[in-house]
């Protein structure tokens, strides 16, 4: 019985308070959407991110492009000067790994540098 009364009371409150809902003015939606569109258009985030990505890819292409060019030149030079067998020797493989490691380290340093610059800019 008590539960029934409580439920009835809740129902009455619901009915009564439904009438007190404030309606948003018609132009509010337009105001909100306009501000959002404007902010999005003016926001530098998307263009900045795109630019960052482009820079990173360019850096990567330059560093690893040079690395592969040097490796190709090494392979060609060794093939014509010292013969095919030397290409499979541990000395040559060691030299190729060394070149690869140096360029990878270079790329790592350049990424670290741009990361530090970025965090300095934010601060």
């Amino acid at each position: 019985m008590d539960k029934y009364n409580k439920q009835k009371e809740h129902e009455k409150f619901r009915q009564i308070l439904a009438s007190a809902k404030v309606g948003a003015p018609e132009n509010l939606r337009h105001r909100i959407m306009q501000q959002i569109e404007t902010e999005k258009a003016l926001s530098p985030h998307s263009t900045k991110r795109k630019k960052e990505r482009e820079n990173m890819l360019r850096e990567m292409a330059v560093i690893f492009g040079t690395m592969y060019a040097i490796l190709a030149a090494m392979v060609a030079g060794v093939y014509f000067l010292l013969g095919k067998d030397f290409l499979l020797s541990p000395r040559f493989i060691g030299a190729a790994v060394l070149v690869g490691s140096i360029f990878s380290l270079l790329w790592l340093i350049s990424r670290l540098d741009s990361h530090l610059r970025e965090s300095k800019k934010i601060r």
Partner: protein
Amino acid sequence: MNENQRLQQVLSGNTSAFAYFVDTYQDMAITIAYRICGNMQDAEDVVQESYVKAFRNLRSFRSDSKFSTWLYRIVYNTAITHTKSQMWIGGREVAMEDASQLADNTLEINMNESERKEIVADVLQKMPTGDALLLTLYYMEDNPVKEIARITGLNEPNVKVKLFRARKLFKEIVVSNYGVQITGT
């Protein structure tokens, strides 16, 4: 299309998909802001600011709660900041002539719709902001106590107690100011 799909659309760059959320929730958002700010001008500014904040931080929204709860929480916090009010401490004094003795458990307002609307608006205006807001959230939007707790930052038992008191106070104000009891016709 459900809300999560619409959110994904907005996140993937379709800004106009956000209009759905404005259309769906702006009435309740402005009701919450109006309860806290007390005037329509500030309420509109608060709602506009809240929607922009929601849009900016959409990536931080986790789908484990309802979008409406998340949005109303932003509206609530923005309105509090805007008015620099303290919701749950003190509150407006309500002039009542020991109405607690008059108010029993019944709730009767037998009158036409516009009169009833006027009375309800006036009573909510006379109530402390927090109490009026709780009644609004609980009865207008059918928010469960759990959602109200998330919106207001109170814990669930606290919401229940405050809701009980708010209902009691609402009835008391109706009786003391209008000498009538509220009923649905």
